[in-house]
């Protein structure tokens, strides 16, 4: 579903963490271009730098060096406040453990993302269609503890895309799900990508899950391997 417009451009992105007295090189020069509407699986062994790359893309931490931009906005030059704005509007996260707020209903978990982004309450018709597509319209009044893992992950996906982000970052979205629910979630991600041209980057260890994406990026030792 790529239309050629570049959403992400990463060049020689490096990230060094200081752990005690030791420098840990999590990223050693990542180069990657992602066009609008692409669905990419990022695979690689543990410690290959996948999550760190996601955290930088999601504005949760700045890169140590290199250049990385989303829609031409340079993430390295961003202040903490700029990165907060980026998370509000440009990036949506889906986590392995769903990470819904346990005290709120599914509807409120979605609504709080809108509130944080400063969007007035009241869902639009198109988003209602997305909720229907995700198959959770009838479960919105339930709290996470009353939802199955698959339902929770679908609510988490709805929360991640409610503000129409430029990119959706899914970190092992099927890691906690059984085969059946995994397939449902992966189909949904592919549907979102195809119907809404949603740009998706998905970390996974599972080759079957990775195959749902149109393109697979392999990471090893802090770099894109091919």
């Amino acid at each position, binding site marked *: 579903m790529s239309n050629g417009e570049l959403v992400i451009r990463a060049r020689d992105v490096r990230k060094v963490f200081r752990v005690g007295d030791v420098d840990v090189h999590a990223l050693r020069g990542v180069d990657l271009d992602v066009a609008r509407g692409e669905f990419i699986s990022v695979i690689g062994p543990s410690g290959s730098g996948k999550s760190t790359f996601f*955290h930088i893309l*999601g504005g*949760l*931490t700045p890169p140590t060096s290199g250049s990385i931009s989303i829609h031409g906005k340079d993430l390295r030059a961003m202040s903490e*406040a700029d990165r*907060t*704005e*980026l*998370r*509000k*509007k440009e990036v949506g*996260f889906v*986590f392995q453990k769903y*990470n*819904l*707020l*346990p*005290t*709120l209903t599914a509807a*409120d978990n979605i*609504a*709080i*993302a809108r*509130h*944080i*982004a400063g969007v007035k*309450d009241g869902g639009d018709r198109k988003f209602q269609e997305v909720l229907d597509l995700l198959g959770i319209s009838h479960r919105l009044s339930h709290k996470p503890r009353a939802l199955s893992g698959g339902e929770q992950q679908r609510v988490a996906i709805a*929360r991640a895309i409610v503000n129409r982000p430029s990119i959706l970052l899914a970190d092992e979205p099927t890691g906690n799900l059984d085969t059946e629910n995994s397939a449902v979630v992966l189909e949904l991600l592919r549907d979102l990508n195809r119907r809404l041209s949603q740009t998706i980057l998905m970390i996974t260890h599972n080759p079957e899950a990775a195959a749902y994406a149109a393109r697979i990026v392999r990471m090893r030792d802090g770099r894109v391997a091919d």
Partner: protein
Amino acid sequence: MLNKLVVENLKHRPVRTFLSVLAIGVEVTMMLTLVGLSEGMLEDSARRARGVGADIIIRAPGTSLISLSSASMPEKLMEFFAAQPHVTLAGGTVVYPIGGVSTITGIDLDEFNRMSGGFRYLAGGPFREPHDIIVDEFYAAQNKLMVGSTVNLMNRDWRVCGVVEPGKLARIVIPRTTLQDLAGATGKLSQIFLKLDSPANTAQVLAALKEKLPDYQMYSIEELTSLYSVSNVPGLSAFIGVIIGLSIVVGFLVVFLSMYTAVLERTREVGVLKALGASPAYVLNIICRETVLLALAGSAVGVALTYGSRWAVMTLAPASLTQKIVPEWWPIAAFIAVFGALAGALYPAWKAAQQDAIEALSYE
């Protein structure tokens, strides 16, 4: 939306919320009960002073007007005062402390009856013997006394001859001469009351008396009752200040612990909020709203508990203590509770706001 999250967070941990609200409630009750007791007891004293029916009160030089005083004025002074223009009656009493803030008062019953119109007896009647005692309804209830009961005061037994309505002079009265003898103050008085031909002459009589006896403490009863205030009792304001300070510390510690554990428990949730784009101010806002809500709920509980403490005081010790409900202090106590709670929430809120999103999201 934010308020919904705050309320749901509080509902999510009902025991912690209940204990926090209760602790803040106790803090508020401590303040309101102390102020209520101070004002209630002073008001009760003022009411009993008015109940004497006099227009002017006189005490010896150098004595405090509203604290306990020894009998140091010669009885003969009554004759002097009785002879002054516009004075229709002079009556003297002896006041003797019997522990705490309680006193026993010696009166000449005939003299007192002429001045005040007399006690209203609920049971029994006037003194018949030197060691008869009259108590008011509150003292009788607190000490389970009735007419004919024996009560031990000043190391000797007294027979209760009458139980009277409260609100006149004192809760415990005995014959003046008996108290003078027991206290070693024969012929001495603690205070003298003057009744005038008209209350309108009070200022004029006071001015004339002050000219003649400049060292004596002389006040109209109106002045006296207006002096029964917290600020005029030595050390009471400071004592209330100390209790309020302690209350703030209690509120601070309770909220600090409560919010600190809440923030620790919600580390991952804070990470989620930050991943969704919540700024540090947004997270701070949540914690502060939660704190204010706890403090306001605690204040409401504290006000309700104050009615309970008043019931306990008025049931268990109506003669020793009088507690008033002080609505004008409700907003002050609530403000102090909110202030203490916010101070306690400051560090946990700051910690939450500064939390690293990546670390928070990996928190188990």
